[in-house]
């Protein structure tokens, strides 16, 4: 909201001016109102490892994040470019593997990666699209300058919060939407459905699309139900689907009905017990064979994880140059790859200033935040790194920008990041906005909801 020397950024002017005129009490009261509304609507998030009361509210912050039209234009162009390259990369890995032949990546980084799915080798997917829905985590590092922190190409979540947070803000502060020209995001489900229908197997006139969920106990169940409802399609569990004569059907009250497109919110590992984990009860036996035969489309495609792994991430700017012949519009956060000797030496010497991440970890687990870690934690991590340096990357901590958040004492800065959702179909569409996640504690850099991070509305101004 403020520049380094404490002035209000121009696109925040209307909001800042409004904020100074509000009594603290009003914000407190609106906060309580938001909490009770979220409870009633049941927008909750289950946290793994908690028994009772395992439906929790994701803390919602009532101070919006505002992006100017210019900032967004630049960011969106960069995201489009990046997702095009990522899709090209996945297609290449599962076909000709030009990038390996060009020597940009070491083959073992692909083939020894648990996210690489040999079952996908040589298979064509409709439109050549693998990551139909991508959530790209970005952080602002300088004025209007964004870096990519992580690509989420498997089952990115959080879009329901983008939509619900907006709905909540419009309800709590209608006057703010009269003061600011905020670009709408509500058409996301329409775009999603349109995209999913377009990647149906060839020859299907009116494709049946379903959302596949692990079930009501999954942490993101609210989002699965929400998207199915907003798109007007069935929300199915693995037990509702079966494969017969090469086609996928769902069990309905009037007998089997064919399914053409599955928007799955289940990881690859659990999709088909005949091919992946045999103990999975969430999946559909035979799904992979129907998929390979081109009789059903799975979105995102199986095997996209090869491109969103932290060990591959450092090479995405190279992919953009390699596949598109363009200079990257969005850079990565400067990342040290500890399989490289000089990066390893530098990291070990600067553990106190860096964030070190396990390349296959997710959700904020398996990472070391140098500045806030204890001496013992750092020493422990040093040993883990030395045992297998190729499993780690390191990034500077200065990466995350801050944004004001309403706290008990008033409004104070907290670290944030932003996850816009990029839809790839016949063309690439990005709804202006995304999920802004905010760390709740002063100085904390962890924004993951499984680690107690919160969300806030994201405004892209139209002028």
């Amino acid at each position, binding site marked *: 909201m403020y520049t380094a020397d404490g002035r209000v950024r121009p696109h925040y002017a209307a909001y800042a001016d409004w904020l100074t005129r509000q009594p603290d009490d009003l914000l407190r009261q609106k906060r309580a109102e938001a909490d009770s509304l979220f409870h009633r609507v049941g927008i909750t998030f289950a946290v793994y490892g908690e028994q009772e009361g395992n439906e929790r509210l994701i803390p919602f912050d009532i101070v919006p994040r505002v992006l100017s039209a210019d900032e967004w234009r630049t960011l969106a162009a960069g995201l489009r470019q990046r997702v095009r390259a990522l899709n090209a990369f996945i297609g290449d890995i599962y076909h000709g593997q030009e990038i390996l032949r060009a020597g940009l990546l070491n083959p073992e980084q692909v083939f020894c990666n648990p996210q690489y799915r040999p079952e996908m080798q040589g298979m064509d997917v409709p439109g050549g699209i693998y990551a139909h829905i991508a959530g790209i985590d970005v952080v602002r590092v300088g004025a209007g300058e964004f870096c990519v922190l992580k690509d989420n190409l498997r089952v990115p979540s959080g879009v329901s919060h983008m939509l619900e947070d907006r709905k909540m803000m419009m309800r709590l502060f209608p006057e703010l939407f009269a003061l600011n020209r905020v670009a709408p995001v509500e058409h996301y489900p329409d775009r999603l459905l349109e995209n999913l229908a377009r990647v149906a197997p060839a020859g299907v006139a009116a494709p049946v699309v379903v959302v596949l969920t692990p079930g*009501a106990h999954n942490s993101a169940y609210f989002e699965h139900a929400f998207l199915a*409802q907003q798109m007007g399609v069935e929300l199915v*569990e693995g037990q509702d689907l079966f494969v017969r004569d090469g086609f996928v059907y769902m069990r309905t*009250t009037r*007998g089997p009905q064919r399914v053409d497109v599955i928007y799955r919110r289940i990881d690859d590992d659990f999709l088909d017990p005949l091919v992946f984990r045999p103990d999975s009860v969430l999946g559909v036996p035979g799904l992979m064979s129907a998929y390979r035969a081109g009789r059903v489309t799975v979105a995102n495609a199986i095997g996209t994880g090869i491109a969103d792994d932290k060990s591959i991430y450092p090479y995405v700017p190279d992919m953009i140059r390699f596949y598109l012949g363009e200079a990257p519009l969005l850079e990565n956060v400067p990342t040290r790859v500890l399989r490289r000797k000089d990066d390893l030496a530098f990291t070990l010497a600067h553990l106190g200033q860096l964030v070190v991440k396990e390349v296959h970890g997710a959700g904020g687990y398996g990472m070391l935040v140098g500045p806030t870690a204890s001496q013992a934690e750092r020493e422990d991590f040093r040993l883990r790194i030395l045992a297998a340096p190729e499993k780690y990357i390191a990034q500077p901590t200065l990466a995350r920008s801050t944004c004001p958040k309403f706290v008990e004492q008033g409004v104070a800065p907290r670290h944030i990041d932003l996850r816009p959702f990029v839809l790839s179909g016949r063309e690439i569409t990005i709804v202006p906005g995304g999920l802004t996640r905010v760390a709740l504690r002063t100085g904390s850099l962890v924004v993951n909801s499984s680690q107690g991070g919160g969300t806030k509305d994201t405004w892209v101004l139209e002028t």
Partner: protein
Amino acid sequence: MLSRTADHVYWLGRYAERAENLARTLDVQYRLSLVPHASSDDRHGWAQMLARLGLESTFAERHAAPDPHRVIDFLAFDAGNPSSILSCLRAARENARAVRGSISSEMWEAFNSTWLGARTQAPSRFTALNIVEFVDWVKYRAHLARGVVLGSMLRDESYHFMQIGTFLERADGVARLLLARLACESPAGADGADAHDYYPWSVLLRGPSAFEIFRRVSRDTVSPRRVLEFVILHQHVPRSIYRSAALVHENLQSVANAQSGETERRAGLLHAELRFGTLESLAPQGSERFLHDLIARAADLSDRIGRDFLRHAA
């Protein structure tokens, strides 16, 4: 629609209706306890109620004697009793949550906030004397939920399955309410027109919101036989067993599939019997026997619906 979804909305309908029926049953028993005539066999009344709800043994596992306070707590708030009002509201909410993608948001919010509200009501606040406050709240929330269903739900298969669940449960609940009353009658009472029959049977009419209607459409005085006839067979009493059976039949026809013919036939037969029968022709061996049969027929329909639609095999 998905069989699993149909299963959830069917049970959503059943549990929501069961919570309301229980509240109405508690209401009747509570009002009876205020009638001087009934106070001597108050305990008997509560015990009969438990027995007719099929909860006698569950209760006995937890409590010694069925004194009013314990029974009320058991029926309204005991989370360990799967048939308590609280448990039913929770089950309704869980079923709604499982299909929140297929029902309207308003509907989900209504069932969710009813559950959240019920959970925060402190059971210790209620006794045999003021349970009516809670009962009224449950009825009010049921009215609200019904309105939301009528006003926001697409009239598709989901709606029909929910209605089937609702009306099967209602027929069952009203039959049990009548049975509990009959069990408290002296053997000769049910057919005579004893003056002091007036109180318990007029209170009973209030359970299914039928007392005022009885006054308006029937010129007769309240007697056991007339109340039974009215609550079982009347075509225009909203909670009569006849109307429940008619609506089960009607909604079943809207979801018919290739294998549901026999189920439809049985529902239609029950509908027709209640439509054209009289108490004499339907219950030659007495009302109690008839009501027990009716409960069994409702259970049979429920099983058959489960087989025909809800656990659809590949």
